[in-house]
Structures are given as C-alpha cells and as structure tokens.
C-alpha cells in the first residue's frame, strides 16, 4: 500500500488545510488536533484513567504498512460491569480513526489484536468506554522507519 509520505504531506499543508475545511477531499495528513477532536467526541470531554490498558505496539516499526497492535484491558466483563467500546486513534495518519471494537460480557476479556497502517512516526491512543460510564486510556509512540508510502 502506498500513501503519501509525511514529508511530502507537510510540504503541501497550506493547500490541504483548505481542502480539509471544505470537506471535499480527505486531508492527506491529519493533525494531532484532529485526533484530539476525534478523541473528544468519544470521551465527551471526560477524563480517562490510565494504567488499565496493556497496549502492545513496537517501539520501532520497519514497515508502516503492517504493524501489529494488541491490547488487553484490566476490567471485569460481567453483565453488570464490562468494557463496551474501544477506539483506536493514530494522531498523524491521513485520518485519525483506526478501528472501533465493541465487546459484550460474552467476550470474556476486553482484548483484541489486529494489524494497522501508520503513515509515519506518531502516537497511537486506545480509549475504552465501560458500561458504567468510565473511560480508560493508553498511548504508545511508534517510530516508523519506512512509512506506509514505501520510502
């Protein structure tokens, strides 16, 4: 998969900002501010507790096209109290949303793994919502040596 490199996207930003605001095209690179907006939508502005999500991502990724991400949340999964939704955000991808996971008490564990694309070095944030309205968060910085543009 080839996506525009972060370097190239930065050069084009003035024109892109206009495009992004007009909503007619996907911005080639989201800004951390957009990621924050996306996270704010999910959390409703409430603070999230850290330390409950074990988030596994490589510190350095050789290939931005396929990076393994896994998380495991320390939280009960009973009908009365369970993790309901987990949002994964990449703050400098063309679009910040990576995936949304929905769990049920039948999940047994609020844990999942997948492979993601990162356009360049950036922070990946995982935020979880629980059935009793709490929020949990974890964040990892991933250095990407060859971004999802093939170099």
């Amino acid at each position, binding site marked *: 998969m*080839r996506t525009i490199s972060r370097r190239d996207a930065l050069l084009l930003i003035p024109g892109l900002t206009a495009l992004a605001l007009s909503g007619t095209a996907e911005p080639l690179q989201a800004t951390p501010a957009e990621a924050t907006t996306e996270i704010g939508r999910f959390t409703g502005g409430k603070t999230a507790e850290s330390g409950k999500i074990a988030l596994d991502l490589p510190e350095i990724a050789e290939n931005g096209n396929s990076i393994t991400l896994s998380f495991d949340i320390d939280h009960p999964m009973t009908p009365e109290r369970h993790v309901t939704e987990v949002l994964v955000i990449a703050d400098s991808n063309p679009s910040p949303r990576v995936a949304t996971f929905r769990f049920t008490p*039948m999940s047994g564990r609020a844990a999942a*793994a997948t492979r993601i694309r990162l356009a360049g070095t950036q922070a990946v944030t995982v935020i979880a919502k629980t059935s009793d309205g709490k929020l949990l968060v974890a964040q990892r910085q991933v250095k990407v040596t060859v971004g999802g543009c093939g170099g």
Partner: protein
Amino acid sequence: MAEKPRIRLPKQAGKGEIVEIKTLIAHSMESGQRKDSSGKLVPRKIINRFACAFNGKPVFECELEPAIAANPYLQFSVKVEESGLFSFTWTDDDGTVITAEEKITIA
C-alpha cells in the same frame, strides 16, 4: 475474493473457558490514498465491519477504517458456556458480505 477467510479456534473447550479466536481474510484494503501507475487515485474499498455471533447472539464486532492493514487480521476472545456455532461476517464497502461458520463443543 474467492479465497475463504481463515479462522483459528479450538474445536473443544471447557464450560466457561475463554477461547481465543484468530481470523484472517484476504483483502487489499484500498485506503483511497494510494495512486496507481498512471498517477490516478485508487478509490477506497475496504472491509469496514467484522462481526462475530455465537448461537445467534452478537459477541464481538468492530468497525474497520483504511488504517487497518491489508489482509485484515483480527484476534479476540469469547467465553463459551455451551456448545454451538460461531458465525463470522465481514462487510465490504460495496455491500458484499462474506460469512464463515465454525462449531465448538463443550468437553
């Protein structure tokens, strides 16, 4: 996509055991960001949703975005209390739905 999705899950489990399920489906997951050899933007076409149900009850679901790598791999857990049938569905942007099923028996 003639290839069948690949699913790894145990054939048997103890009652109340949490089993790990691994799924893999062949799909290019065109992000809509890529340019072809003539410089034209290749339109977005991805698997945007995956769902797993057990004996008809939804257990796990996810919305996938273009940031999910090609040939989407998904691993998740299910607590099995009874024998039954897992059903898995993958939904493409174009509306195509790919399905698969796997049985599990409580030992």
